[in-house]
């Protein structure tokens, strides 16, 4: 587990010094670096396992009788997939990267990787145990992404707390004159996640339709205030490094940051438009969904300028650019879906599945692949990077576009009041395309796994 070149060891207080130049240096691999690498390797393991499950679920739409084993049945396996890629892959990888970029932006050098090792172990425990428990048919009543029962979530919450404490110590010891934007986002995201999980599991407000109000809040905040906030924080560090450009203005970052908190937090119930949830809450969510345009555009403009003012083009930059494009389109798509007529057509259909993959995969996973390429101990070749980008992003589009078309047709068929089974059979070709695109994504993950393992093992 020893490598010759490590970029994570380099301090870039203002994030202007291009990483590519630093690569020739040969600093020693610190304990913190080793912990980061093993966290990333574990995250990629969960990605591979989690998407293997996802791929199998996709096949089940075409071959529902492919097996009749209880713990492999669709209803039990679906949350295994979603929770594994959410918590095991995306969360663990975001935390691992956070432990690179936060100290780096604060101008401090972490020495010990002990905390991150604990975090990796705790999160992996939750995901490993949680998946088995779900497969056995024990779950928390089916609210999406809240399927793990609370005892399973305890190690995860402990991991987030530990991560927050560690990152806090970096911010406290900062050598920079101000708190870097990266730290605003990432530490806030940790605070939000702890709040959200608490709200989601404390039973005081879960009775009757309260459960649904909390569910809407939880699933939206999980996505917007944890995954997206963390990713935005990472963007502010890695995009300037990968391009050598600068963000437009600190003031714009401020606008994006605070409006994100205000608008995003009230959106939750837009997952239950027209439901029995109080109408004023649905309306608040609609207003918030429109308001969301402000932080999205502000953040995008800010970061797009870093691309325009580029000095160089690290192989990872293209992945960040794609991730940013998915950020704008995916978020605006989300706003669109909250409108009543759009909701009429798309709600309950596979359009939503497409949307969640365009965002959780297009923004978060593609962005994380970028950081893996950027902070690799040995540089990825252009060919390697091209293979990854083509498979992952091409696969995603093959996955999502047909589902959007099919979902729209399905919604229209319901609107016209056609027999339900027609809307099932019409999806068949689109479900087939989804499986094809999914396969490409899955191969991309195996590829990342092989490369990461080989790179990080390299003596």
């Amino acid at each position, binding site marked *: 587990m020893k490598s010759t070149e490590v970029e994570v060891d380099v301090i870039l207080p203002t994030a202007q010094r291009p990483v590519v130049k630093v690569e020739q240096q040969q600093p020693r691999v610190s304990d913190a670096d080793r912990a980061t690498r093993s966290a990333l390797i574990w995250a990629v393991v969960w990605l591979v396992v989690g998407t293997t499950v996802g791929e199998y679920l996709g096949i089940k739409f075409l071959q*529902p009788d492919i097996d009749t084993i209880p713990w492999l049945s*669709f*209803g039990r396996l679906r949350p295994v997939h979603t929770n594994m890629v959410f918590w095991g892959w995306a969360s663990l990888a975001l935390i691992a990267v956070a432990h690179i970029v936060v100290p780096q932006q604060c101008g401090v050098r972490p020495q010990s990787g002990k905390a991150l090792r604990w975090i990796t172990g705790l999160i992996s425990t939750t995901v490993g145990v949680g998946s088995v428990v779900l497969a056995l048919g024990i*779950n928390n*009543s089916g609210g999406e992404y*809240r399927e793990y029962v609370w005892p399973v979530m305890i190690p995860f919450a402990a991991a987030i707390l530990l991560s927050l404490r560690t990152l806090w110590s970096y911010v406290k010891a900062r050598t920079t004159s101000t708190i870097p934007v990266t730290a605003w986002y990432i530490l806030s995201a940790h605070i939000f996640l702890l709040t959200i999980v608490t709200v989601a599991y404390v039973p005081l*407000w879960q009775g009757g339709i*309260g459960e649904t109000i909390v569910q809407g809040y939880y699933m939206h905040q999980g996505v917007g205030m944890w995954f997206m906030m963390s990713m935005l924080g990472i963007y502010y560090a890695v995009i300037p490094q990968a391009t050598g450009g600068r963000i437009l203005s600190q003031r714009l970052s401020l606008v994006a940051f605070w409006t994100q908190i205000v608008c995003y937090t009230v959106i939750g119930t837009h997952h239950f438009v027209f439901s*029995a949830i109080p109408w004023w809450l649905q309306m608040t969510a609609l207003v918030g969904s429109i308001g969301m345009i402000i932080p999205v555009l502000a953040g995008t403009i800010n970061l797009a300028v870093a691309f325009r003012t580029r000095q160089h083009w690290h192989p990872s930059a293209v992945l960040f650019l794609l991730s940013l494009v998915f950020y704008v389109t995916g978020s605006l798509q989300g706003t669109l879906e909250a409108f009543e007529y759009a909701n009429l057509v798309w709600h309950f259909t596979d359009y939503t599945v497409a949307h969640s993959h365009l965002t959780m995969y297009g923004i978060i996973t593609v962005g994380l692949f970028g950081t893996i390429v950027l902070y690799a101990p040995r540089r990825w070749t252009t060919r390697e990077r091209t293979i990854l980008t083509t498979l992952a992003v091409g696969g995603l589009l093959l996955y999502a576009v047909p589902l959007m078309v099919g979902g729209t047709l399905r919604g229209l068929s319901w609107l016209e009041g056609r027999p339900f089974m027609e809307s099932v059979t019409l999806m068949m070709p689109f479900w087939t395309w989804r499986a094809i695109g999914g396969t490409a994504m899955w191969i991309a993950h195996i590829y990342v796994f092989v490369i990461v393992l080989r790179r990080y093992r390299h003596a």
Partner: protein
Amino acid sequence: MLKRQQHIVLFVSVTVLFVALTAVVALLPAHHETKRRDVMPNAQLTEEELEGQQVYIAEGCVACHTQQVRNIDMDMVWGKRGSLPLDYTNATITSALRNPATLMGTERTGPDLTDIGRRIPSEDWHYRHLYDPRSVVPQSIMPSYPWLFTSENGTLRPTQQGRALVAYLLSRKQRDLPDGIAAPETRWKTRSSTSREESATPTVSGAELYASYCASCHQPNGAGVEGAFPPLIKSPIVLGNNIDTYVSIIMKGIDANPSYAIMPPVGELNGLTAEQVVAIMNHERTSWGHSAPTVSIDDVRRALKKLQSNQRPE
């Protein structure tokens, strides 16, 4: 000095703002709903139905099925009215491990199940469907659940879990609202809106009605399912002139032939009107190669009257 403490100021403000917003949009309204005292009359689940709900949760049926009728026109195929908070007051804590479950769902890969106990009221149908969905709905993509059944001397029987699950499904009937509570206004009049507003009567297309109320058992092509649901093709009742019997079967169901399952009182459960019944009958008498003379509405009205006054025909 202040500069060194900047991060505390920042993150404390962030936390306060977030928690305050959380309280307004989630905690307070959710807490308010939790504290409701009113409950839907006759909606309490029996012990067996509750057990069935646990099976429903464990198997993750909610991944593909919603249980919410939205207050929009297109959803009125799943119930008579939009769902209200009152419909979910049953969702309370049942175990130390789990949150309460409204099971509203977010995906309709399969149909909404709010009213399935009325739409398909037959135990036999549900057992067959759960054991092998494709035996009753050939194009279904729903998973099969053979582990909810055991084989006893060659015949399949549902396990206790299987029985409980079907009891739960049959309990899924949209309840009538108690007096004084109005159904939510139906919005987005989209589905067949013109014909509805003009005639102000429910749909009377025989083909559609047959698809909604009869096809799940007798199949869209009228061929039935062997050993469970008789074919209507060439059925002497469908083609014959005994209107009274025909109407009685539709309204009250029938259990005459031991080699078939029981037909539940489909017409009564769904409140079919004379116009709807005659449309279904005439659809059956003229489809699948049939060319029997059509039935008149007066004959059906007469037959319905007879049924009501409890003079069961024959």
